[in-house]
């Protein structure tokens, strides 16, 4: 059943990559909203 390990490795890798990218989007969003708030205060 060694081959099955590769199957699950592939599926997990796919979602790790997607989650990582979505995470970077969330981080950039919050940073921009923070900047917008600071600019609004000025």
């Amino acid at each position, binding site marked *: 059943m060694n081959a099955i390990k590769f199957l699950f490795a*592939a*599926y997990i890798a*796919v979602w790790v990559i997607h989650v990582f990218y*979505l995470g970077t*989007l969330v981080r950039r*969003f919050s940073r921009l*909203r923070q*900047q917008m708030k600071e600019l609004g205060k*000025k």
Partner: protein
Amino acid sequence: MKRLFPILSIVTAVLLAYALYQALVVAPADALQGDVYRIIYYHVPSAWTAFLLFFINFVASVQYLASANPSRKAAAKWIVIAVGVVGIIVCFLPQVQRQLTSAGMRPSAMATTVICIPAFYFLIGKWFPGQMLDVLAVTTAEVGVVFCTIVLVTGPIWARPVWGIWWAPGDIRLTSTLVLWLIYVSYLVLRRFSNSAQTQMLAAALAVFGALDVPLVYFSIWFFRTQHPQPVIGGGGSMDPRMLHVLLINWVAFLCFAFLVCWSRFRLELLHREVEDAHAMASLAGPGGAPAKPSLPLHRSAP
């Protein structure tokens, strides 16, 4: 509009779960490869999605370059229409039909693909005017790279148990995908490292170069392979219709997912530009005082 995103997210999540169930449980095991072949249900839809996104980037880049002046825009429009018309006629010429059927493609399928070029061109031009073209370009490039990375990661993971090797340089599809990935990563690097007002033009030019390069990559590797036979990774030939069915389900699910990710990235880019403009306005206003109304247009507006 605001309601749409959460609703679509839920629909997509359900679709993805259903597709996963289909891939792991419903689809029959492969006669030769057993269960490990199921990687195909994530590998191939990601590839198709990446290629679609890069294609949209290419069309948006061409439109962006063309929109620089009206005569160029008109010329581009006629070229695209000509490509569509000539392409369809060529598909139904007897010599070409013979070539296509020997390569395993139906002329009608080829014609449908060809008609997509002008169709995409005009739809994108209508829905994304002016600067929106560039926002679309950067969005599809970035999300395309993510999906392309997935193809390049799942490909070797699939190859290793089945063929005993991680990579075969003559594998035309995986190697072409690698080059496409490299081109678009360099596109993203150019965008990040360039700080001029015309970054967008430079990036659009690079996208055009990349698109010209891809067929050359494909044929160069194809010929290299005929002289140096290599194993083919990723399977080939016809597919069991049940497997094709599951493949399409997964593709639809990933397309919806890609759409949501692109939408988010698009909104992020719009917010980014808004913040940049706000920064610029704030520095124009100077210390104290209300922000001055800018006399020069800060955006390149659609002609």
